[in-house]
């Protein structure tokens, strides 16, 4: 029997300054069965919801005012006051060029979806976060989800210090 995702059990915060984009995302989530969707059109309103807590997934545009979706990620991942540093965040943005993808990834985004998007592409990212959550990495210069997607054999030194069988450095 195949696994299913019951979206009525998932609490969303969606953030986009464009009313039509926000409404469409809300409608897609409603069609999926989500019945807890908080909406915000700017950074401050989104942060108020995040600080309240009780959100499972954030989907945010990068370009917000007065601060950006990347600043929001920084708060969630790095701020000592953050209630949930592991809160999954999808950056859904029209800034789809490579530097913006790298920026979002390096600030700890779980997934990146470029606008214009298809419902299928968005769904795949949601399913990945819910059904196949990645481990998080806490390193001196990075906190966020594991950035390597493919598991490939690695024969180099165990700099992470996670392999009990690794030879001493």
């Amino acid at each position: 029997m195949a696994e299913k995702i019951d979206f009525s059990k998932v609490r969303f915060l969606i953030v986009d300054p464009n009313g039509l984009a926000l409404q469409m995302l809300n409608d897609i989530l409603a069609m999926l069965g989500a019945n807890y969707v908080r909406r915000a059109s700017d950074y401050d309103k989104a942060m108020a919801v995040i600080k309240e807590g009780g959100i499972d997934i954030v989907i945010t545009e990068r370009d917000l005012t007065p601060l950006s979706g990347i600043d929001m990620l920084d708060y969630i991942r790095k701020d000592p006051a953050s209630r949930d540093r592991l809160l999954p965040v999808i950056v859904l943005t029209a800034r789809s060029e490579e530097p913006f993808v790298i920026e979002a990834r390096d600030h700890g985004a779980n997934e990146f979806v470029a606008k214009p998007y298809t419902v299928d592409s968005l769904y795949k990212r949601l399913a990945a976060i819910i059904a196949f959550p990645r481990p998080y990495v806490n390193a001196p210069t990075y906190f966020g989800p594991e950035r390597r997607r493919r598991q490939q054999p690695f024969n180099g030194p165990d700099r992470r210090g996670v392999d009990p069988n690794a030879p001493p450095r």
Partner: protein
Amino acid sequence: MAGQKVQIIQPSGDLRKRAVNFKTGFGVVLSAGETQKLQTVVEKSSEKFVRDIGATLRKLREDLAALPEGETLTREMLQRVGNDAIDIKGLGGTFKFPLLTQIAKSLHDYVLQIKTPGAWNAVIVGHHIDALYVVLAQRITGFGGQVESELLVALRAASAKYK
């Protein structure tokens, strides 16, 4: 960094436990029927998209037309054009108007690189807005035909020439 180990934190699994099951909801991998069902949401919003973007473009056209003779775009206008262009870029393809997305990207890229606004900038911005308006008014979904491809090439060439 030497000696500072990296910590791997496994996700709690709480969300998976709550939401993943074998009875209700959408498949982890969408079936064709489920994709179709979700696509109806986009189709329902399509008319609103055409209305909203049409209104945005009309306003931009009016503001450009209202520029006094010899005046060019202000920084504030450029900012607004850039913001509207990125919105159209982000939405067009979702509503099956990928040509709108491409023209809007060309406009956004053009506006971004303007350092000191000059008379030509308003002309090039105006041509982009006219092109966006025509694509929307004619409901040119998909990438259009040869004329549309040539239009895009011409807009990019003009943008490169009149920086």
